[in-house]
């Protein structure tokens, strides 16, 4: 955060990079979450019920375990891709 406070004084060009770093942090935390979800789902017994929460509400819909596992795996892959893209862009910037 101290670095963040210093950057705006240096120039406006750094604002997007600040945003991207935040986004990167969010992504990393999300990836961690998703990893845990995949592990949990994969370790569940076959007769366990899985519920999926409706966004922004307290209702949980019954879902299929295998489907949820595959879905969570997919999301994890997507998140990883996104994270890597950001990292690559940063690297290229630094190189330049």
């Amino acid at each position, binding site marked *: 955060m101290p670095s963040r406070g210093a950057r*705006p004084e240096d*120039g*406006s060009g750094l*604002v997007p990079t600040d945003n991207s770093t935040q986004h990167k942090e969010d992504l990393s935390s999300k990836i961690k979450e998703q990893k845990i979800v995949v592990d949990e789902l994969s370790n569940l017994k076959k007769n366990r019920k899985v*519920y999926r929460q*409706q*966004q*922004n509400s*307290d*209702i*949980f*819909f*019954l879902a299929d375990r295998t489907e949820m596992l595959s879905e969570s795996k997919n999301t994890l892959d997507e998140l990883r891709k996104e994270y890597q893209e950001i990292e690559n862009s940063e690297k290229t910037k630094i190189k330049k």
Partner: protein
Amino acid sequence: MEAPPDPGPHASASASAAAPLRAPEVARLREEQEKVVTNCQEKIQHWKKVDNDYNALEERLSTLPDKLSYNIMVPFGPFAFMPGKLVHTNEVTVLLGDNWFAKCSAKQAVGLVEHRKEHVRKTIDDLKKVMKNFESRVEFTEDLQKMSDAAGDIVDIREEIKTDFEFKAKHRIAHKPHSKPKTSGIFEAEFSNDLKSKDLLADKELWDRLEELERQEELLGEIDIDSKPDTLIANGEDTSSEEEKEDQNINVNMMNQVMDSLTPSNCYQNVTNSELFNGQVNSQWNCSINGSNSYHNNEDEEDDDGGDNENDHDTLGAEDNSIPTIYFSHTVEPKRVRINTGKNTTLKFSEKKEEAKRKRKNSSGSGHSPQELPMIRTPADIYRVFVDIVNGEYVPRKSILKSRSRENSVCSDTSESSAADFDDRRGVLRSISCEEATCSDANESILDEEQQENHQKKLFPLSVTPEAFSGTVIEKEFLSPSLTPHPAMAHPVLPTIPERKEVLSEVSEGTTKRVSKFKAARLQQKN
């Protein structure tokens, strides 16, 4: 950063205004702009989340009716759940706002969600625009700061700007005298509009003029204020009275005409005014005023007794001074008597009399009256003057109305006035002609031409007796089924009744062919 503090201390106000590039202020500006930007970002994030939620909701709603029932965990508060079934998959209640809900199908709910998403997108776009705008501003301020930090030469430029400002200020001050007339003009206008203009213009001439105007205005204003509570008519009256005071002219006639239309309530005012004027003004004024009063009374017929009395006083006072128009006022009293005693016919009479009086007035205005007026000093004069000549004999006019309208006699407009006068002085004339008095009354009040003719017939033998009355009373009595000859109003006339009766009997006999009979009789007499 060194430059800005130097010019600060001296000439602080102008310098601060002239030097926007000082570091602390620019930094603060940038801070504020950045705050706006961050605020916008937060808002955008919030709205994006809302948009995301709506997206999920839309998806869920669109797939909800796909199955008949869903196994769900039903929430009990935030921490407890129990297994349940979602049964009505195509039935949704949508919150419209303020705890109002609309029950609708899932598809309709999807439509609503779409609509709301549109709104959300719009707000997000607006916020983005604002954010961009402020980002550019932030860049601009940063550039400014850099420039001010980099260049120390700007201090010199600032000094020049400062002198410029001073010059501008002087210029403005110099302009003021030129613009003065304009402002003064405006000032005057405002002044005339509403009397509160207490600005600070130094021109002494102007002020004198303004004060003068103010005095005038106050005068006018006072008049207005006085007149406001009264009715419009009263207002006119006031103005007219003032005119009289100022001019001492005899425009009073005009005023009187105005006054004629006064309502009974204003009658008193009239009277008082006229009384006041009696002291100051010449005789003609009195006359005209009296005339107006009497006329007014005629119109109103049943005025307040007090007003009439006052009128009488006026007329008495006028008699002393004035020659021509005394007679006007005297009509008042007898008329009242008539009204009290008479039937509906009296009303008609009054109306006709009014007309006659108007005509008389007009004629007097034209100058016809002055020739005749001097002749009439007493009621007797009136009767001497207004006499019909039939077959070389002098026949007293009984009904002025009739004589004028029918016989084309020489009688002037003043004949009515004479009749009125006679009414007033009935007591005096009673000894002379009681019969005729009654006759005249009848003529005036009743308006039946045939009856009048009857009376005329009767009166022919009577030579020049000065009298214009026609016997109302008797006719009335006759008309009424009870022939008792004593109406309240007829008491002076009582002795004449027997004679009348004959006439009346004639009338009664000739009811069927009245007109022809009387005409024949008149023709005979004329021949």
